[in-house]
């Protein structure tokens, strides 16, 4: 096993980890506002298909990103309408949104299946540009990878250091109290879902037009559900989500390394690790108050009369 191969594996872990992190950040905002969005998988699919379609039509990946981000935000507005305005059940609405995403993404992407697109340009950080070519090509990342960790810090700042974030968390803990304190819980939930959708769209755009570089039906392959597991795993904290996303996508890299060094472990069993780890972590916390989920997660806010 050469250093080159190891670095290559780590580099690909960063690529798959970045899109996961964006989606996780989006879902974190949603859940902090008290909304479990099981439709994340569908949102990712719609945004991913939109990113490929727009990039392919305009020839400009930045338009693709923009369109994907907007598509994500708008799709989540459907969720907001169902669970906030019409007070529908969150789990059922999320699953319906997932099926919606299956269909809409197939419709948008049908003309682009298998078409290879020119992805987001990659460039090296200034300090790394002087490495020998075969190494430096491994350290060429696209813009969205460089921005992933700053984005996590930004979301943390948004949630824990701004007035808006305080409102989101207050609504997620207890909408009645937030209302009494002068917030509009419904408006806050709409905003949180829209913001979360924008981030999910960014993640999907990275997956399709920076990493995989084409479109196929159901290509997200359960990433939405991994992201939901990650939100719980990282205790609803954007900073911990960085480590979580690296750990989860690193499992794939780890498996390649193991195979190369002659240890045979089924890739399928390794893929189960993120989920099993999350359940294990939940068990270890037990009922501990400190790590509890936002108190009104999943509940319908019926309004205050």
């Amino acid at each position, binding site marked *: 096993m050469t250093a080159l191969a190891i670095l290559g594996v780590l580099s690909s872990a960063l690529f798959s980890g970045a899109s996961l992190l964006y989606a996780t950040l989006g879902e974190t905002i949603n859940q902090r506002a008290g909304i479990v969005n099981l439709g994340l998988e569908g949102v990712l699919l719609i945004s991913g298909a939109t990113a490929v379609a727009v990039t392919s039509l305009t020839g400009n990946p930045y338009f693709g990103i923009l369109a994907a981000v907007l598509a994500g935000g708008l799709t989540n507005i459907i969720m907001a309408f169902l669970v906030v305005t*019409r007070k529908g059940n969150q789990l059922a609405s999320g699953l319906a949104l997932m099926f919606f995403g299956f*269909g809409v993404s197939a419709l948008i992407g049908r003309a682009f299946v298998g078409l290879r697109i020119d992805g987001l340009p990659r460039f090296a950080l200034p300090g790394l540009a002087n490495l020998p070519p075969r190494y430096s090509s491994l350290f060429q990342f696209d813009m969205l990878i460089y921005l992933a960790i700053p984005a996590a810090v930004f979301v943390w700042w948004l949630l824990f250091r701004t007035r808006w974030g305080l409102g989101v968390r207050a609504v997620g803990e207890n909408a009645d109290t937030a209302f009494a304190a002068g917030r509009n819980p419904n408006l806050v939930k709409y905003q949180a879902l829209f913001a979360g959708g924008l981030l999910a769209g960014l993640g999907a755009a990275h997956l399709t037009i920076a990493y995989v570089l084409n479109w196929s039906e159901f290509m997200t392959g359960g990433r939405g559900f991994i992201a939901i597991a990650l939100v719980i795993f990282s205790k609803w904290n954007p900073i911990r989500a960085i480590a979580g996303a690296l750990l989860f996508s690193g499992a794939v890299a780890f498996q390649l390394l193991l195979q190369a060094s002659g240890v045979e472990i089924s890739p399928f069993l390794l893929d189960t690790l993120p989920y099993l780890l999350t359940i294990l972590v939940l068990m270890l916390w037990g009922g501990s108050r400190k790590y509890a989920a936002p108190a009104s997660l999943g509940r319908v806010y019926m309004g205050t009369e």
Partner: protein
Amino acid sequence: MSTSAESGRRSSVIIQMLSGTVGRYLSMLVIALLLFGIIILISGRNPITSYRELFGSTLGSWRGFSEVLVAMTPMVLTALAVALPARIGLINVGGEGQLYMGACAATWGALTFSAAPAWLLLPLMIVLGMLGGALWALIPGLLRAMGLVNETITTLLLNAVAPLLVAYFVFGFWHSPMDTNRTPNFVEAARLPTLADTRIDLGLLIGIFLLAAFWLFMRYTRWGLEMRAIGGNPEAAQRNGVPVKLYIVIVLCAGGAIAGLAGMAQVSGYYGVLLTGFSRGAGFLGFLISWLSFGNPVSILLTSFLVAVILTGGSMLQLTTALPYAVINILLAMALFVVLSGINIFPGRRTT
């Protein structure tokens, strides 16, 4: 929710609920068909002929109708797998995973005892399928009963693990000489019998039987009464000596067993082979159907039928409009959105 003990009052409540249900379904169909019609129109087809094909192909012939019944089989079972635990307040989002584990265990039986006669092999596969699903629900059940982790999260997470385990077994041990992602075809003795010359298998009959049994069980047995007590107020039930924790574990496992049975019926009846990733959401559809039906057995049957019409008709749309099959999910989702948002353009008598 009426708790009146008079049976007359109760039956009028049931009639009201059903008329409300019919109104909801009509709204769902009309609005969803209108919205989806716009999409068909945009993709350059005539919605009216498309719809004529959709309904003609499903409800217009015995052949099409029988295919609808085939499609609704796993949904009836997975919906019941959600409705049963819901009666004591448990949210089982794990039907998909339990279905996979049931299929996995049943396949093990079919491959290992392929020399056994059908009268022995099929019951064995049914038991194995139910055990597979039940074991998959045992983990969330125990964790919930111990007060460690909420069953919603664990059942959801285990959904993702089950297909991976199936892939592990199929790729690693069971795959046929020709393909790596499927087992060899099951022997004839491992196939559920089908009705006449259709593809309707015994699974549908079992599903309808279980729905009826579920209704009778909840209504007429001591355990049904105790479950209703837990659903109403777990603390009060506990104080009255109902073993709530035991019920949590057993009822969730029973739900898992029913979903496992759906998986068994899929591999033994419909496919006759275990494919990796064979189910794309039957377990999730079951959750939606159960939720939309308020766990009512008759509504479960009706809703499964409607969903099956949409999904079966989708394959006809694929042939005639050249749209990908997955596009039919839009029509399904729009119908679900309408019901979820509680929009009823044919309001009957108000039930509240």
